[in-house]
C-alpha cells in the first residue's frame, strides 16, 4: 500500500531517465565521425546544456525566469487533471491573460504601483480564467471534449493577439508589438546581473503553487475537485455538483495560465508581443505529469524543464538543435501516459496483484 506512493514518484523519474537516454541516442546519431567523436559530441552537448542552465549567475537567473511561467502552466494543467479535465489550452489562456492585462497596464499610467500591479494581475487572471471557462462550460453542458475546444481556443487567441498587436494595439513601430506598459505596472526586480534581470514574478509563481497546494489539500473546494476527478458518480452521490466543479476547475486552471502570461508582460518584456507563449502551455503538460499533479512536485519539474529549455539554447552552440527538449518532453509524456510500460519494465505490476 505504501508501495503505490513510491511508484508514483518512481514513474516520472524513470520516464525522465529513459527520455534522456533516447535523446542521447538521437544526438549520437546526428553527430559526425567515429563513435569516439560522436561520444565526445554528446558529452559536450550535455555539459554545454548544464553550463547554460546552471553554470553562471546569469544562467541561473535565466533558468529561474523560464521557470516562472512554467510553474504556473504546470499548475494549470495539473489542477485540471485533478478534476479529470485535460486543459491543453494553457497556451491560449496565457495569451489572453497577457493581452488583456497588458492593455490595462499600458493605460495604468495614473495609478500608483500598489494598485496598478495587483489590478493588472487580477485582470490577467480573469481573462485567462474566462477563456478557459468557455471550454469548461462546453464540456459540462454539451460534452464537447476539452482537448479539441481548448486547442481551437488557442488558435483563436493567437489570431486575436496577432490582430491586436499589428492593428489597434500596435505601438506604432510597425513591428508586431504593443506599446510599453506604464512604469507603475512593472514588477520590481529582485536581482540584476549584467543584462539579465529577475523580477519578483518567481515569488508570485511559488505563492500560486502554495495557494493551489492549500486549495487541493486543505479546503473543501479541493476535496470536491479531487472527488470529481476520481469518481464523478460518487461525487454526485455525496452532494457535489460535477458540472459546477468542471467549470470552476477550468476557470482556476485558466486563471493560472493567465497569470503566467501576465507575469511575462509585466515582469519580463514590459509589453506584449502577440506570440509570447512559444510552447509554454505544452510544457505545462509535461511538468504536470512529471510533478504528478502535486504543486510542490510541479515546482521541481519546472526547474527541470526550465533548466532544459535554458540549457538547450547553449546546447545549440554545440550543434544540437534546441528542439531536443521538445523530444525529451514528448517521450516523458508518452511514458507517463502509458505508465504500465514502466511498471511492466520494472516488474512492479505483478507484485501489485489483482487490478
Amino acid at each position, binding site marked *: 500500500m505504501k508501495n503505490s506512493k513510491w511508484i508514483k514518484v518512481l514513474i516520472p523519474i524513470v520516464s525522465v531517465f529513459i527520455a534522456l537516454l533516447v535523446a542521447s541516442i538521437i544526438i549520437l546519431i546526428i553527430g559526425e565521425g567515429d563513435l569516439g567523436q560522436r561520444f565526445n559530441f554528446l558529452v559536450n552537448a550535455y555539459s554545454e546544456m548544464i553550463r547554460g542552465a546552471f553554470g553562471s549567475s546569469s544562467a541561473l537567473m535565466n533558468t529561474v525566469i523560464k521557470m516562472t511561467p512554467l510553474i504556473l502552466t504546470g499548475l494549470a494543467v495539473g489542477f485540471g487533471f485533478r478534476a479529470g479535465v485535460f486543459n491543453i489550452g494553457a497556451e491560449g489562456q496565457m495569451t489572453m491573460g497577457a493581452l488583456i492585462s497588458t492593455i490595462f497596464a499600458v493605460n495604468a499610467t495614473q495609478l500608483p504601483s500598489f494598485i496598478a500591479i495587483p489590478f493588472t494581475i487580477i485582470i490577467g487572471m480573469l481573462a485567462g480564467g474566462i477563456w478557459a471557462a468557455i471550454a469548461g462550460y462546453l464540456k459540462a453542458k454539451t460534452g464537447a471534449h476539452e482537448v479539441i475546444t481548448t486547442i481551437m481556443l488557442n488558435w483563436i487567441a493567437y489570431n486575436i493577439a496577432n490582430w491586436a498587436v499589428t492593428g489597434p494595439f500596435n505601438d506604432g513601430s510597425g513591428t508586431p508589438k504593443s506599446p510599453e506598459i506604464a512604469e507603475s505596472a512593472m514588477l520590481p526586480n529582485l536581482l540584476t546581473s549584467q543584462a539579465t534581470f529577475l523580477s519578483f514574478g518567481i515569488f508570485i509563481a511559488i505563492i500560486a503553487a502554495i495557494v493551489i497546494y492549500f486549495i487541493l489539500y486543505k479546503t473543501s473546494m479541493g476535496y470536491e475537485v479531487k472527488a470529481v476527478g476520481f469518481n464523478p458518480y460518487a461525487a454526485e452521490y455525496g452532494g457535489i455538483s460535477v458540472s459546477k466543479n468542471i467549470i470552476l476547475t477550468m476557470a482556476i486552471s485558466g486563471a493560472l495560465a493567465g497569470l503566467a502570461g501576465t507575469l511575462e508582460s509585466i515582469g519580463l518584456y514590459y509589453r506584449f508581443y502577440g506570440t509570447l507563449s512559444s510552447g509554454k502551455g505544452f510544457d505545462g503538460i509535461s511538468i504536470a505529469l512529471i510533478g504528478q499533479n502535486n504543486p510542490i512536485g510541479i515546482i521541481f519539474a519546472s526547474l527541470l524543464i526550465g533548466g532544459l529549455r535554458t540549457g538547450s539554447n547553449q546546447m545549440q552552440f554545440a550543434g544540437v*538543435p534546441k528542439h531536443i527538449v521538445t523530444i525529451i518532453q514528448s517521450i516523458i509524456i508518452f511514458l507517463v501516459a502509458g505508465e504500465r510500460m514502466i511498471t511492466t519494465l520494472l516488474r512492479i505490476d505483478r507484485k501489485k496483484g489483482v487490478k
Partner: protein
Amino acid sequence: MDALIAILGTFTNPVFYKLTLSASTPLLFAALGGLFSERTGVTNIALEGIMLMGAFSGVVGSFVFSSPWIGLILAIISGIGLSALHAYASIKFSANQIVSATALILLAQGLTGFLLEPIFGQPGSTPIVEKIPDIHLDFLGKESFLYKMLGSLSPFIYLAFLLVIVSYFVIYKTRLGLRMRAVGENPEAADTLGVNVFKIRYFGVIMSGIFASLGGAYLSIGELGQFSENMTGGKGFIALAAMILGNWKPKGAMLACLLFGMAEAMNEQLQSNPQLAIPSNIKPLFNLLPFVITIIVVGGFVGKTRGPAASGIPYEKKG
C-alpha cells in the same frame, strides 16, 4: 454592399472551387484517418502530429533522393511509425489515449524542428523541393471554367476523394469493416464471438497514421514544395471536428471537410480581393473563423452526432 458583391463574385470564380478542393484535401485525409481509428475504438488526436511528420518526411525524401515519390513513401512510413507507437501504448498498455496522442504531437514537433537543421542546413523551413507533379487536363481547354477549376490539380486531391469511396467500401462492405464497427461499439461482444479485438484496433490506428501522413505529405510535396515548422497549424484538429460533424462516416466527413475547405477558400479569396482592400492587420480575424466554426461544431453537435461507443476506452480481456 461591396462585401456582398465580393462574396457573390467569389462563387463565380473557378479559382474559388479549386481552392476549396485543395484546402479540403489535407483535412479529408486526416478525417478519414481519424475515422478508421475511432471506428475501431481508439481515439487518435495525434493526427496533427502525424500530418506534421508526414509533411516533413515527404520533403526529406524529395530533398535527399531528389524524388517526391520516395518522399511519399517516407511520409507513409513515418505515419505508420507514429501511429504504431500510439497503438502500442493504447492497446497493449491501456494508456490514456489523449495524453499519449499529445505526446506524439509534441514528438512530431520536436523531431521535425530538430532534424530541420542537420538535414537542410537551415532552421524554420526547408528549401523548395520537387513536388509530385499536378495532373493536367489539357483537353478541357486552357481558358475554360472547368480547366481553371480542375485543370491542374495535385494527384493527392484525386486520391483523397478516391479514399472516401475506398473507406466507405472497406467499412461497410467487407468482413473487416463489419468487425471494425463491432469492435468500436462493443469489443466484449465481438470478443465472445472470436473476433480479435486487438488486431482490429492495431489495423485501425495504423490506417489512421497512413491517411494522416498522406494529408501532411500533400501540404508539403503536393502543394507547397516546402516544409516549414508547425505548418499543419491545427489542421489535424479541424479534421477531427470534421469527422465528428460528419458523424464518423466517410461521406459525412467529406462533406464536412468541403465545408471547412470552402470557408478557408472564401477567406483567402476575400482577403486577396482588390475591391475590398482588406487591411493586412484585420486578416488574423478572418483566420480565426475556421477555429470558431470548429468549436461551434464540437460544442453544438457532439451530443447530436454519436461516435463509436467504445472509442477511447481501453479493452482488457477478462480472466
